[in-house]
């Protein structure tokens, strides 16, 4: 793990980081990865992952919820006429 790898991960994770933190993450990663690397010794060749997935979403029909609309809108960092306002993306 090198600083440039940390830079890439920070970009993927959308987190600004200063140089000091990046350097300490390099050594943290070495420490943590050497611990979790014990899993490479585990034999899991015979494990078939069968997640048995099924649709847990409800049907797309309106249902009442007890969300407080005002509490949600009040907490928008930026808004205009009850709409959430974000920086332009185009």
């Amino acid at each position, binding site marked *: 793990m090198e600083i440039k790898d940390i830079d890439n991960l920070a970009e993927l994770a959308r987190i600004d980081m200063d140089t000091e933190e990046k350097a300490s993450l390099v050594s943290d990663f070495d420490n*943590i990865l050497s611990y979790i690397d014990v899993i*490479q010794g585990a034999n*899991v060749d015979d494990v078939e992952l069968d997640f048995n997935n099924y649709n847990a*979403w409800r049907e797309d029909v309106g249902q009442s919820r007890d969300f407080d609309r005002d509490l949600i809108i009040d907490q928008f960092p930026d808004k205009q006429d009850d709409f959430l306002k974000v920086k332009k993306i185009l």
Partner: protein
Amino acid sequence: MIDTKNLTIEKAHEALKKGEYTCRELAEAYLKNIEEKNAELNAYLEVFDDVLEQADRAQAMFADGTAVLMTGVPLAIKDNILFKGHKASASSKILENHVAAYDSTAVKKLKAAGAVILGRTNMDEFAMGSSTQTSAYGVTRNPYDLERVPGGSSGGSAAALAADLALVTLGTETCGSVREPAAFCNLVGIKPTYDTCSRHGIIAMGNSLDQVSPFGKTVRDAEIVLECLAGYDPEDATSTPQNIVDETRTKNMKPEMKRIGVPWHLFTEGTTPEVMDNFKASIDKLKNEGYEIVDIELPYAKYALAAYYIIMPAEVSTNLSRFDGIRYGLSVPGENLSEVYKKSRHAGFGREARRRIMLGTYVLSHGYYDAYYNKAVKIREKIKKEMLEAFEKVDFISTPTVPFPPFKLGERMDDPVAMYLCDIFSAPANLSGMPAIALPSGMTESGLPLSIQFTANNFCDQALFDLGKKFEIIK
């Protein structure tokens, strides 16, 4: 004067029913304790301003005959459990002023039962830690020794209960976050079978592992709280339907559950001598009570914590992507959308949260996904399988709850792996989904709490309570 030190839910219920005191007086007794002791412990982040109104509503339930065991019970909730109209920050700067817009199912059930929610308790930020030292709002101290940690991540709830700042408290577990602080604060803590309690309205850390989990001073108290919280919830996509809970429980529970398996190979090294001696003494007491102690081998359990530290960060990096400064929480202005995300997440998350997000991003990234995430998921399957096999031979699996007694504030903070090792015996229950209970098992020579853990098969939470009640008598 209400004797809060020796109070249990059933004793309080009897007294409230007989009118020895009112729900308001009971709540006030705890508010007084909080007033006196919270400053030095920092167990509560906030005491809610509607406590007495809640108590009056509970009193009305006694008046009209609808009171249940939880009615009027003053309790505290961890800061990641949503209570509509009240702050819930997960002890993070990124949610410092966040007000819950709806009730978690846990709170909904507590409200329906007339419980009195006193306030929200300190925790490791987003439940990431084992000592409540990563909170953005200061450390919580252990009531048994103010220079030591209360455990974590639900350390505020543990300290609050141990110091009688609530009659019972709620925490959440992802990997030992209730059992480990229960061990450090001389309490009972149960991690119920995965998704017997709804996760709806709990600020998520690792969805496949998270579970609301109660603390009690007695096994019976923890049992009463769990009875109140458990049940199918359509709002939680992984909630287990009641018929499956019932069928599996019927299959797994046996009339006589007396066989305790001990995987000695997992903890002969790395456990302090006093923890080991206390554990052996506890096992001997159980043997004298007619329990059969069986040596068992769990060859994959030694990989549990490492697999956990892949699966959990992977889920963390996904879950915490929602905190981006856009819809709620801390927002730092930037030139463009990407800058708002990056600056808000830098300013809002603490170091451990950032570290785990980065680790999760790494194990899920192209080129490492198979070596880490997929491998860890397969190990998890192996662990589930070997535990199911073990439960064909034994009724419980027992280990110490934590390899060492509570440590000093500041310790283990510079070494993430040393901190992670606090939960080495917790991981198998969270990875397998099986229920596990931590029970007080004595004290060290210097008066620090020690604890023993029992794990049972899926949906056999009741067997853990039954065993726990016996152990309370013989310990």
